């Protein structure tokens, strides 16, 4: 089944006439995504790689029945593009744009959730469900269809992990890049919840980094609600405090948001953390095996107690039945007396 994007995804690319929007519209189309429309105000009526371009999102959605949008417009206009998409009835907005002011994001995320829509990003590589659909900029060449769910705050680091999985013949159900900004839409927990519910996904790789407390929250969620094997990698163990490490959200502030804290929280939730992204496949294999053995043991234990209980129950029931049966006989006997 995969999560968030699949065969039913009908995509509109916002900012399709720009350099990045145009290139990735083509790459997404080549990958097999149904790219049904593009939007650039003032360019309505034209075509980009055979994709019809509209002036407004409302037009694009009415005329093409698009249900998903990818935002490639520059940071100055990206927030407006998200509002426009949601207003036009889009239910999944994937914002690739990097550099959106965080305070603007605090307002737009409220608007998105109030309208029952989902936002992924900003500042994210998007997502891909191998073999069916990709929305964003992840290279289609490195993925392989399978049953590992991948969720990450990073771009190229995710590619590194996906590539390692693919080389180990561990294909992916969906790979979601949630973005590196301090305030974004969909978070780790939303993705974990979706992977847990998705029948195609059998195990999960979660890639985090310094800054904020999302990984700690995710660890608590995994402990309570995720039954599938999860392994992790956390980037930034050597990052100095108070310095923004490329991503706007990757900063240790006031002593919180360190890699150590995150690794400790994950380990406490039973999630092993790899020392290198290239070690993720091996770690995941071990973890899957471990959980299987645990489940098998548990099942065996349950079966054993169940048999005991059933046999005990049966004996009692038989005895009762026998007693019941014997009563009328006694009565009869007494009558006879």
């Amino acid at each position, binding site marked *: 089944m995969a999560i968030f994007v699949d065969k039913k995804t009908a995509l509109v690319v916002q900012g399709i006439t720009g350099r990045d929007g145009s290139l990735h519209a083509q790459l997404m189309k080549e990958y097999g995504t149904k790219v049904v429309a593009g939007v650039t105000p003032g360019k309505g009526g034209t075509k980009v790689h055979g994709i019809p371009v509209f002036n407004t999102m409302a037009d694009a959605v009415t005329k093409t029945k698009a249900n998903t949008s990818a935002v490639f417009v520059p*940071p*100055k206009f990206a927030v407006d593009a998200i509002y426009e998409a949601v207003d036009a009835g889009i239910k999944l907005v994937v914002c690739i744009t990097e*550099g*959106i*002011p*965080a*305070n603007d*994001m*605090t*307002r737009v*995320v*409220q*608007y998105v959730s109030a309208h029952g829509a989902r936002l992924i990003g900003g500042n994210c*590589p998007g997502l891909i469900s191998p073999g069916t659909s990709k929305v964003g*900029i*992840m*290279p289609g*060449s*490195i993925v392989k269809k399978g049953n590992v769910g991948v969720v*990450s705050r*990073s*771009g*190229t*680091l*995710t*590619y*590194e992990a996906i*590539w390692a999985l693919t080389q180990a013949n561990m294909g992916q159900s969906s790979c979601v890049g949630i973005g*590196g900004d*301090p*305030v974004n839409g969909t978070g780790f927990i939303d993705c974990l919840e979706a992977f847990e519910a998705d029948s195609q996904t059998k195990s999960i790789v979660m*890639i985090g*980094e*310094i*800054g*904020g*407390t*999302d990984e700690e*929250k995710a660890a608590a969620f995994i402990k309570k609600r995720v039954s599938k094997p999860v392994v992790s*990698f956390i*980037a*930034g*163990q*050597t*990052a*100095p405090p108070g*310095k*923004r*490490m*490329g*991503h*706007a959200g*990757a900063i240790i502030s*006031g*002593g919180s948001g360190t890699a*150590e804290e995150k690794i400790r929280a994950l380990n406490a939730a039973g999630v092993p953390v790899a*020392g*290198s*992204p*290239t070690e993720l496949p091996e770690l995941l294999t071990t973890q899957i095996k471990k959980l299987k053995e645990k489940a098998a043991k548990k099942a065996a234990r349950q079966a054993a107690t169940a048999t005991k209980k059933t046999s005990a129950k049966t004996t009692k029931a038989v005895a009762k039945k026998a007693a019941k049966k014997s009563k009328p006989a006694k009565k009869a006997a007494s009558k006879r007396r």
Partner: protein
Amino acid sequence: MNVHEYQAKELFKQAGIPVPEGAIATDVPGAKALAQKYERPVMIKAQVHTGGRGKAGGVKYAETPEQAQILSQAILGMDIKGHVVKKVLVTVAEEIVTESYVGIVLDRETKRPVIMVSSSGGVDIEEVAAKTPQKITKLAVDPTVGLLEFQARNLAYQLYRDITQVRQATDIILKLYDLYWKYDASLIEINPLVTTPLGDVVALDAKLNVDDNALYRQAEIVAMRDIDAEEPSEVKAKEADLSFVKLDGTIGCMVNGAGLAMATMDLVKRYGADPANFLDIGGSSNPDKVVAAMEIILDDPKVRAILINIFGGITRCDDVANGLVTALRTLKPPVPVVVRLTGTNEAKAKKILSGVDLHTADTLDDGVKQAIALAGVPSEPAEGV
């Protein structure tokens, strides 16, 4: 971006938040002249982009202009956590009755601006938060509605009982919230907010951090940038549109993507050495950027080997390879260079780099190990990572 205290105070003053009279001095006679002009005891405050100025001796009380002269002499040129003091703020010393804290920060958890107030001001608020969190009152503001007057008043009541002081503080909190939005702040803070013997509420300090992503619409803030107060290599990197943070190790790193750049640094540490820097060349593969990145790494005399780690997705490996050839030809790096290129156009890249004097690695881990071996540094034991 951070602005200095004196700059933030100027913005506070314009907004109607009371601050003590003060001005900036860049030399000792200037500081003395200001103290003479105010005809009152003054505070001499180092203007540097780092916390803990007070503890480092960068904030002093001067009773007389002569004392101001001696103290500013000591503070100007002082090194505070690697920041040399080039300016001091000379400001009228207020008599203090109470010290409180008021701050607004972008809270990632609630995805809202959170206002924090505490009657324990004048000290490190992070310490207060860690040790006595009950002394801090927090309010997450709905960014679509804004801060309401009653909310500000309720917060003010956490600080004062006297109604005139509550009114003053309410006004200050509302104005601070307006400034937070006006200047796209990620943090705006008054520590301490004091009361004087006359009962006035005054902001003795001012801190403002502005979201870098919003600088395109903050010309007034950009004009306040103090390039002198920033790390020169980081300034140079910014000009080349590179994301760079200087560190203390010996392995120079050049990577595409922030997450992968951090992971590369972590692996350097894991295999027994220390990274010299964080450097993300970004998604585009402009060869000029590779040259600029190499130049910045080589400016650091501590660097003993350079590790280039590129995972080509959008970035094309052949573009990076072309940049690399130019960089090696023009800069002639005196240290070994290890390259790991994989992904889009990898084969083309390898062709371009064949015959070029550098070391190649197929995997990330292998690249890191090679760079460390070539650097030949006796590795210090890793610190408990």
